[in-house]
């Protein structure tokens, strides 16, 4: 895994966590590049937040990566700078987990793991029943795949040939530190899914995987290899930084690593 992309978005995340006292910086850095590619190239942004039946859906099942979603939404003009700046404040539509009841561009309220993925299956099923267009993307953590509902819904999705569904597993090794079997791909394969792999920090590989999934008549999973805390070495891994709030000094160190100020 090479250079770090989206440095400015990473810096924005760190600053918002510092200012608000809430957020999961390493988890956001893990998924940021995937979310950015989704909205940059694969989701029809003009229909986000609309009631158009053919719109694409993105459900962030890994809800604690919310800030990665928010900064991308702001980058593409789907929320305003003022809305993003309100993050974590009383009355804001945006805080540590996404809440669909507070803003039209948020598709699902998540936070308790194992909910967003099966809801995405339901949305994909609904589109299939209505024969409407658009695709349904959901992003789950690899640790989240320990939840039974993931596999219940994965089984259902394959049996109903939900080719309009794409799940992305943020394989940042949260799961591996807990349970050592490294078989996400083979499990999804056994469940009847179209299984792809990608470097979750490579624009080229993420775009290629998301593009190739369009042709699939069965649900696709992209197992995206990522680094938790990508871009800032001292944040990386599964230690104290998972839900740690940076001090003023920490923030300066993070921004230095990101080449920001």
């Amino acid at each position, binding site marked *: 895994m090479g250079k770090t992309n989206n440095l400015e978005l990473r810096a924005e995340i760190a600053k918002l966590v510092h200012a608000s006292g809430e957020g999961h910086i390493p988890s956001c850095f893990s998924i940021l590049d995937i979310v950015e590619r989704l909205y940059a190239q694969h989701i029809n942004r003009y229909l986000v937040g609309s009631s158009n039946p053919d719109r694409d859906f993105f459900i962030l099942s890994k809800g604690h990566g919310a800030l990665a979603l928010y900064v991308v939404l702001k980058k593409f003009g789907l929320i305003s700078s003022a809305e993003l700046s309100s993050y974590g404040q009383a009355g804001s539509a945006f805080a540590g987990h996404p809440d669909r009841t507070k803003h039209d561009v948020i598709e699902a309220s998540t936070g308790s793991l194992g*909910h967003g993925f*099966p809801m995405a299956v339901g949305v994909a099923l609904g589109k299939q029943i209505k024969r409407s267009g658009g695709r349904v993307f959901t992003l789950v953590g690899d640790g989240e795949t320990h939840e039974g509902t993931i596999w219940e819904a994965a089984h259902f999705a394959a049996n109903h040939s939900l080719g309009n569904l794409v799940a992305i597993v943020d394989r940042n090794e949260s799961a591996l530190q807990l349970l050592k079997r490294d078989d996400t791909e083979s499990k999804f394969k056994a469940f009847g899914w179209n299984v792809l792999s990608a470097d979750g920090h490579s624009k080229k590989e993420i775009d290629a995987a998301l593009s190739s999934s369009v042709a699939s008549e069965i649900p696709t999973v992209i197992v995206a290899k990522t680094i938790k805390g990508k871009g800032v070495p001292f944040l990386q891994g599964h230690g104290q930084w998972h839900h740690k709030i940076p001090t003023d000094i920490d923030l300066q160190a993070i921004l230095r690593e990101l080449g920001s100020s």
Partner: protein
Amino acid sequence: MSLRGTFAEVSLELAKSDPSIVVLVGDISHGLFTEFRAKFPDRYFNVGIMEPAMASIAAGLAMVGFKPIVHTIAPFLVERSFEQLKLDFGYQNLSAMFVSVGGAFDYSNLGCTHHSYLDIPMVASIEGSRVFSPVSAHELRALMRQVMDTWGGISYFKLTENGVMTYPSSTPLEIGEPVLVRLGIGRIAIVSLGPTLVQVQDALSRLEISYPENGVRHVHVHSFEPINLESCRNLLQNTDRVIVVEQLNSLQGLGSKLAISLGLPGNARIEGIGINGFVRDYGSYQDLLTSTGLSEDCLELALLKALGQE
């Protein structure tokens, strides 16, 4: 016809005029939905044995405009899947109809795993939910239709298989409104919730023989939430002892709810006959009603005691 049969029949009737209705079942009652499946193959899913995912999938369907009807055995639909009901529907302001089968002891001999006496207050704790315990086809039909006409939030129907009675179809029914079944002129009232209507009516019939002057008033409740408290007060006025009978946990049931919120005047008091703790016994439906004090015999004795005639 069983309540489940009525449920399937009404679902089909509703689906004919509302293309947004989708039925999800957890490998139960599929025989009753044969006609539904034949008419609407795209809107009927026997999801399999995956109750929490079934609830979340229903939430996804609701996100794109469907009205899901989700059905399986009560403890699995509610207790196993409670977080899905709470978060995916309650928190997200999404709507679905959940219909369970299994009163407290309908599956009496299957033991604790299939008993269900916590579900109603659990669902009622979710903001915006409406919770019903119908005992007759008339109630179920009327309430299901009213829910569809006022779609929103969780609606939960707990269907029972034991003690289903023919409720007078002429009785007007409205969501939240208690029903006066027997106008006693005495100071004691008995309130039945859902299937306990059967045992309460039997106990009162016996009491007519053992103590004809009993004067006990009988009010029946099919809507646990919402419930019109003003109507309850009106129906219970001039009584000073109200006995609430329910196949629910006593601490979380209708008796507790009315005791906290009804505010009866003077020295009037509300007491409950319900289920305390876990019921670990096997036995018939009647055996478990007896052991929990909810059989018609037990209720007759309780009423005689309240009347000072034991």
